[in-house]
């Protein structure tokens, strides 16, 4: 359980980091918090030849709300810092709630938000929250910068649109509509374990009382975060508060019918489908209570 040998650099600027990543001779990996990468190094599932530690780059260590009201989280920002940030819990409480489900406080003290997103474990909370919140990724590479939407970013298990010579410098979350309620629910065998199944729900209450906008995204249900339009349509069909329970039940039934989750040591597919229905109804109720 010791990493194979590798070289290590901790550049102080982004251009310097990009120069290291452009190395064509060696396999290069970015190191941020290391809470996913170091276990893989220890188990020798990953054997990079050069690690580029980006946590010493000052411009990546900032979290701010930009002029257009969007939240920007730099690649060096730790999960624990985001979880206690009052601007985040006021404007993007789904993010705060999702981070609370990640591992343990001792992990969140080191792990970064962008690191978890780039690692893209399909059972992880942050990719699911990012898709629900329509996150946008800022990428820097030798050819310059580009922005990628969350839906195009997550490709498959441990695979994203990020090229080997690029760095995610930050992730941005647009301001959420007024009267939006949120819920992140998951089931795991023990506190802090990866979710056996989980769901992020955002509901926006219409002035007339129904649902204006709905987002339903599952984690651990496939090889990437899975948005479920059938469940969202069922929620949008809610005609006023008196029919909400029917709409929530219809969304849950849609999830059970439409999801095709894997069977593995944590749970089989049928268990996941049943749990998905129950979790989604629970999450809808909680999100609705929080619409304001």
């Amino acid at each position, binding site marked *: 359980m010791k990493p194979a040998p*590798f070289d290590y650099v901790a550049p102080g600027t982004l251009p310097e980091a990009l120069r290291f990543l452009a190395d064509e001779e060696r396999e290069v990996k970015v190191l941020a918090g290391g809470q996913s990468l*170091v276990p893989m190094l220890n188990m020798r599932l990953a054997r990079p030849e050069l690690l580029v530690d980006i946590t010493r780059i000052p411009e990546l260590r900032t979290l701010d709300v930009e002029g257009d009201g969007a939240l920007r989280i730099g690649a060096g920002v730790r999960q624990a810092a985001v979880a206690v940030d009052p601007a985040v819990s006021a404007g993007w409480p789904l993010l705060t709630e999702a981070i609370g489900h990640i591992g343990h406080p*001792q992990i969140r003290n080191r792990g970064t938000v962008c690191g978890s997103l780039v690692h893209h474990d399909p059972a992880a909370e942050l990719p699911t929250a990012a898709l629900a919140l329509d996150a946008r990724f800022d990428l820097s590479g030798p050819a310059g910068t580009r922005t990628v939407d969350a839906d195009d970013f997550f490709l498959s298990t441990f695979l994203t649109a990020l090229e080997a010579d690029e760095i995610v410098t930050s992730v941005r979350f647009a301001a959420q509509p007024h009267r939006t309620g949120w819920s992140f629910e998951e089931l795991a065998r023990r506190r802090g374990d990866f979710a056996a199944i989980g769901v992020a729900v955002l509901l926006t209450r219409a002035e007339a009382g129904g649902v204006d906008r709905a987002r339903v995204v599952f984690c651990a249900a496939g090889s990437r975060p899975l948005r479920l339009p059938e469940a969202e349509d069922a929620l949008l069909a809610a005609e006023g508060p008196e029919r909400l329970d029917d709409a929530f039940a219809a969304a849950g039934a849609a999830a059970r019918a439409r999801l095709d989750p894997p069977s593995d040591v944590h749970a089989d597919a049928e268990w996941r489908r049943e749990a998905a229905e129950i979790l989604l109804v629970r999450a809808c109720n909680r999100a609705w209570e929080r619409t304001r």
Partner: protein
Amino acid sequence: MTDTTEARPDPLPSAAPPLSEPSSWHELHLTVNGRPIRAQVESRLLLSDFLRARLSLTGTHVGCEHGVCGACTVLVDGEPVRSCLTLAVACEGASLRTVESLADEEGQLTDVQRAFHEQHAMQCGFCTAGFVMSCTAMVEAPERPAEDEVADQLSGHLCRCTGYRNIRAAVEQVLDDRYGKAGEEK
């Protein structure tokens, strides 16, 4: 602690065995338990192994080596982290505290250590150093942590002996002493 290693290989008798493969070395400066340390470390050296093998601070225990058990928890700049998931070289400039920093030279225990003793919050003791470090960070917080925050912190540690009841009792004893009993002003 006398590690002021300058040459390599490390002159300490507890030094790691010679390398079989080439890897890069770095000069590392950090503070461990209040003492400034300068050492040559290999890129791949884990903080847990640096503390145990290079500084002979074997109070930090290594259980799973992939971040699950929490036995290796130490404080980095005041925050509990897994030393097995942290590269030593990434701790340049950091201030570390291990379980060896707690009791003073006369063996006077800290509140947390005394509470673990009085509440019998251990049996085999393998996980204890990790628990004690997370609990130390908790009781040093400016405000009393809520009950579910305590549970969240403790969930980051595996104990296979106690069933956690006495560990919680130990934490509550210290928190009650510091902040008054839950729900009443001190």
